């Protein structure tokens, strides 16, 4: 028994012809996505990768002290190194002095161990008087720190091309002289507090948004269209308004002589000369961020609630449930997808918030983004900013991944 092959009009077996058509359609779709994909790869994905690279890149100093680092590699780090290391150091420093670029290594070495600044400067100054041979003794004569192994250990620790020291700094850890990971001194442990505060603010803002958004989303979903459309404007107008405008309105409201403080004084909750500080602290950050992110919670909740038929609740009640039981057992479980979508979205946005905390947060209300901006613009420790940014990015992408699994990225609703 033989099965006759079905042929398409051009004489090919139907299966082959179909596969060909499928492949053509696939290519067509890819061709359409291609331009944006390539554009984002070049201008966005690649730069973010470059930033990650920058956070572990420590090659600048390797290039400036090449001979020293080669020579010091064999040293065991216990007793003082032998003559070749010092000879190589002399060679490198002479070159740096000649090109007047030794300033660049000072900051990097000082980061490894305090005290390198004066050490390098003094050594470079005296470099002209060095004689050939017996460099070890001459170095120690110039500055006694060259005879202390911990400085040479610090130098050795700066040798590798790649380092994750900036990541350790981001969680208040560091390498000690032996290359072991230890905690930063107590007074320099600031980043853990910042991470925890960022998580705390994002968490509570999400909770506040949920508590405020749930009742109004329900109202919007159950009211007749003509009323709900009108009320929807209250949600959408802030959504479309500039973030700076909304933040400045909170600055007006929360300032010491502002309307909210006036109200507090009028109600007798505080004396006129003892007005509470509502801004430049974490209260300001909480209040302003909750209001600004609220629409991002309302819109997904609303779109889920809109699909829940009111007859379900009626059925629950007719079967003997009180309105509360009917709500808890029927309505609430059906809204969980909306709650998940809204909460993850608000949390993702809150965790990376920058503008609002910077303007109304003050020192106690600033978040990790503000620290990244500080290191980008003021301290100019770009590799540390990049390391903090990468850590934040990993956190956000993890939540984004969960969001994608739970909600599906194509279900994001905008207005």
């Amino acid at each position, binding site marked *: 028994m033989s099965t006759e092959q079905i042929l398409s009009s051009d004489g090919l077996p139907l299966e082959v012809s179909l596969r060909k058509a499928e492949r053509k359609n696939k290519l067509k779709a890819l061709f359409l*996505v291609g331009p944006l994909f390539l554009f984002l790869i070049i*201008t966005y994905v690649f730069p973010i990768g*470059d*930033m990650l690279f920058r956070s572990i890149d420590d090659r600048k100093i390797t290039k400036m002290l090449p001979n020293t680092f080669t020579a010091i590699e064999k040293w065991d780090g216990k007793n003082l190194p032998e003559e070749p290391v010092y000879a190589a150091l002399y060679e490198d420093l002479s070159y740096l002095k000649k090109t007047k670029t030794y300033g660049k290594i000072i900051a990097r070495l000082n980061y490894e161990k305090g005290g390198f600044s004066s050490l390098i400067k003094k050594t470079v100054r005296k470099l002209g008087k060095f004689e050939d041979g017996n460099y070890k003794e001459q170095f120690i004569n110039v500055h006694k720190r060259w005879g202390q192994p911990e400085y040479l250990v610090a130098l050795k620790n700066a040798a590798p091309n790649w380092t994750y020291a900036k990541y350790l700094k981001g969680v208040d850890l560091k390498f000690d002289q032996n290359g072991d990971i230890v905690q930063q001194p107590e007074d320099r442990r600031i980043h853990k507090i910042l991470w925890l505060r960022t998580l705390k603010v994002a968490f509570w803002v999400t909770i506040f948004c949920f508590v*405020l958004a749930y009742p109004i989303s329900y109202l919007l979903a159950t009211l007749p*269209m003509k009323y709900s459309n009108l009320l929807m404007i209250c949600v959408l107008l802030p959504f479309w308004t500039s973030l700076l405008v909304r933040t400045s309105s909170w600055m007006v409201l929360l300032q010491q002589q502002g309307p909210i403080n006036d109200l507090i004084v009028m109600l007798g909750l505080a004396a006129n000369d003892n007005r509470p500080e509502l801004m430049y602290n974490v209260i300001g950050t909480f209040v302003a961020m909750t209001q600004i992110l609220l629409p991002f919670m309302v819109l997904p909740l609303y779109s889920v609630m809109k699909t829940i038929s009111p007859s379900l609740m009626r059925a629950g009640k007719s079967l003997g449930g009180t309105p509360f039981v009917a709500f808890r057992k029927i309505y609430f479980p059906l809204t969980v997808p909306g709650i998940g979508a809204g909460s993850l979205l608000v949390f993702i946005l809150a965790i990376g918030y920058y503008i609002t905390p910077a303007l109304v947060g003050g020192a106690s209300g600033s978040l990790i983004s503000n620290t990244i901006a500080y290191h980008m613009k003021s301290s100019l420790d770009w590799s540390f900013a990049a390391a903090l940014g990468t850590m934040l*990015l990993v956190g956000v992408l993890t939540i984004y991944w969960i969001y994608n699994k739970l909600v599906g990225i194509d279900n994001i609703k905008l207005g």
Partner: protein
Amino acid sequence: MSLPTYTSWNYRIWHYTYLTICGLVFFFLIAPLFIILPLSFNAEQYIHFSAKMLALDPEGFSLRWYEDMIYGTKNPWGLAAKNSIIIAFFATIGSTILGTVAALGLSSRHMPYKAAFMALLISPMIVPLIISGTAIFFFMAKVGLAATHTGIVLAHIILGTPFVVITVTATLTGFDHSVTRAAASLGSNPVNTFMKITLPLILPGVISGALFAFVTSFDEVVVVLFLAGLETTTIPIQMWVGLREQLSPTIMAVATCLIIMSTLILVSAELLRRRSERLRGINR
């Protein structure tokens, strides 16, 4: 929302409490925006309601801060507005074209790895702006486009495309592909089909995506803070600088103008959304 007469007292009380809570939340959402409007007409230099304003005395109000905004000698708002509009215009065109074309591909039944591509194309919306700003700044500095209009436009195209992709993909979910097949069977080439058939049908989605892209660019501050130079300052940058120094009534005047603008955009976006739903035959 009147209640039937047979509802119990308990339920009545609960119902009105609920409505009050909702009212308060709506107030919390919308009221902060309106605090700015009267203050921008303040005759005095301070950001609070003067006694004359509270008494609705005409002398308490003036347009001086609007004059200051437009004619003020040292004011950067003119240059900033020009830059903002130019940048937002080109960024909108760029994001709309790239985003719409990509959305057409993404909505195709034959698109492989759809979820992965979608996740990547949407990511600029999800990644914290400070990270995007840092990364884009390093990139633009490397290729020599920092502090140029081109650099900022490119950055805003990156940030604007996710919105276009989302809105246009949403419009295309209800799209009846048999009309394009009909056009093809009648001898139309793909470009012609797109221009004559597909585009008019998805236009509301495209325009509302474009509005999103425009607003994103026009309001964007974090990335431009890294990229902008003296000549490429924008309205958000000037507001940011002003807000960091002190609250001035001129900023309130600018903010009022921005609120009016966002109201107009909101109205057009809403009208478009309804039109789009009608075109796609979605009845709600």
